[in-house]
């Protein structure tokens, strides 16, 4: 059974700007779906529609086969318990006036009201350890942490209510390479241990190849291609995907040099 199904989704701004156009796909349980495309392609609008921060202009979104736009207030609350989001700028996404313990426990106050104080403290405590943070830091404020640690806190806050779907909007683009790898590995572990599904929005195609099971390529609001990660990377069908893959810097210095030299040569010949 699919966890999430998006059908003919369209979002129009100002009457004529199509941010999303006829977008359809399904997300399975325990699957990581990568959403790639350049800025302005509609990646974040898609995420905002799924978490109901953005109204659709047409189409439907189904969560476990029921339409999310027909949910009652109680169903809505229940829906929001099942999905969480993590953001690009990890420090920006944390309230600077709350301690990290308060930040991590906050979703429980709204979505799992009725837990005892001890239970909340225990859950926060466990989550903090699971994210590889040390307990003496629990009562500190976000600005005292590095970018990678802030992203771990953001993930802890998302995971504390045990969601089934985690939407990650460029979760590592603001982090240093060595920290990126730590967060990617952490997300991979969460997928295995918690039976989690993810929508992984990124413009970094190297990272997408490492973490995603399937990839959806967006361009100007339209799906250009969707399929298994390896199939897309090894034999892309759409011209846009080919172009996108051709613009990734290559790991081997000699190959990368040849790639740029070829571009310089073709740019020179256009001028003459």
């Amino acid at each position, binding site marked *: 059974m699919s966890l999430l199904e998006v059908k003919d989704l369209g979002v129009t701004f100002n009457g004529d700007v199509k941010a999303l156009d006829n977008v359809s796909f399904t997300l399975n349980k325990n699957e990581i779906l990568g959403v790639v495309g*350049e800025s302005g392609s509609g990646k974040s609008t898609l995420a905002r529609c799924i978490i109901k921060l953005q109204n659709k202009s047409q189409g439907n979104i189904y969560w476990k086969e029921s339409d999310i736009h027909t949910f009652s207030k109680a169903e809505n609350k229940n829906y929001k318990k099942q999905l969480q989001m993590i953001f690009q700028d990890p420090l920006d996404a944390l309230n600077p006036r709350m301690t990290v313990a308060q930040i991590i426990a906050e979703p429980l106050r709204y979505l799992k009201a009725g837990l005892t104080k001890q239970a909340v403290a225990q859950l926060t405590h466990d989550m903090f350890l699971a994210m590889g943070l040390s307990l003496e830091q629990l009562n500190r404020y976000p600005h005292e942490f590095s970018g990678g640690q802030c992203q771990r806190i953001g993930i802890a806050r998302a995971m504390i209510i045990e969601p089934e779907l985690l939407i990650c909007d460029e979760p590592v683009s603001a982090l240093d390479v060595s920290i990126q790898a730590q967060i990617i590995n952490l997300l991979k572990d969460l997928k295995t241990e918690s039976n989690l599904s993810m929508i992984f929005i990124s413009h970094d195609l190297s990272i997408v190849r490492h973490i995603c099971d399937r990839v959806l390529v967006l361009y100007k609001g339209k799906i250009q291609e969707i399929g298994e990660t390896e199939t897309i990377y090894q034999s892309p069908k759409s011209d846009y995907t080919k172009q996108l893959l051709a613009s*990734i810097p290559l790991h081997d210095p000699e190959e990368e040099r040849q790639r740029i*030299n070829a571009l310089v040569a073709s740019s020179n010949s256009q001028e003459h």
Partner: protein
Amino acid sequence: MNRLLEINDLSVTFSMEQAEIQAVKDVSLTIEVGETVAIVGESGAGKSQLFHAVLGLQAKNANLTGSARFQGRELLNVSNKVLNTVRGTAINIIFQDPMTALNPYLKIGKQLSEVLQVHERLNQQEARKRSINALAEVKIPKPEKCYNQYPHELSGGMRQRVMIAMALLTNPKLIIADEPTTALDVGVQTEIITLLKKAHNQNNTSIVLITHDVPLVAGLCDRLVVMYAGKIVETGKLDEIHNHALHPYTRALINATPNYSLQINSTGKLDTIAGNPPSPNEVIKGCAFAPRCELADKRCENESPELESINKTQSVACFHMSESQ
């Protein structure tokens, strides 16, 4: 060899209320005429601070020691008047965020032609002509139209092209590109690198590319300088380092970068560097990388390794480089 920029024992120290923070520690580095050098390292490594100091762009509470000579002329701790004889003409800098580097109140044309009017004393018409040519040179589709636009009317990629056009206007000897592609899409990244490479090929311009994106540098740079916690830990030819990095940090940095052309490895995990880079106010006695290093021993904790030449081109600061492979 023809030395363009010679940096010797340069340190940047910030005096704060509580303590002194040393962002750059005794860095020595020479850039030759026509050389393309990449400075890589994580945030806080001091890569930008080093070159901001060279151009006199450091914060007010920064204290600079050492020397930085450009074509034999000292640039460190000299007046703005002296600095302005090279800044904007012989050395130009391209910043990470083109929106904050451009003046939002002035049209693109005004910002470009001003450079020529001030530095080359051109009249308005000549300056306009050269500016439009420069915009065409960086592949801006409608250069005349762009000349009359404001920065906010352009996309991030277009704005960065304008910055490159501006940096190339005066035919500089050295361009410092400080994370020029970080905020941009991959396609645009490639275009920016291609433009810089072209400028280098045409005028033998030296380029310093400051970045944390290791794969990106190969298309443009011949030499790599790796910085960690304010110091150079390894330097050498790019291929040399790629094939045979001697510092454990360099190796870890290369391995932690996801390789798009490879399939996921058998464990499905990326190699990581455990822990975090030291915070700037931490007092470091030994090697700054020791707490994160697998090879570290007692000596690494207590003594700081000096940068040592291995051969003509490669240098490394590590006590355990012979154990490296």
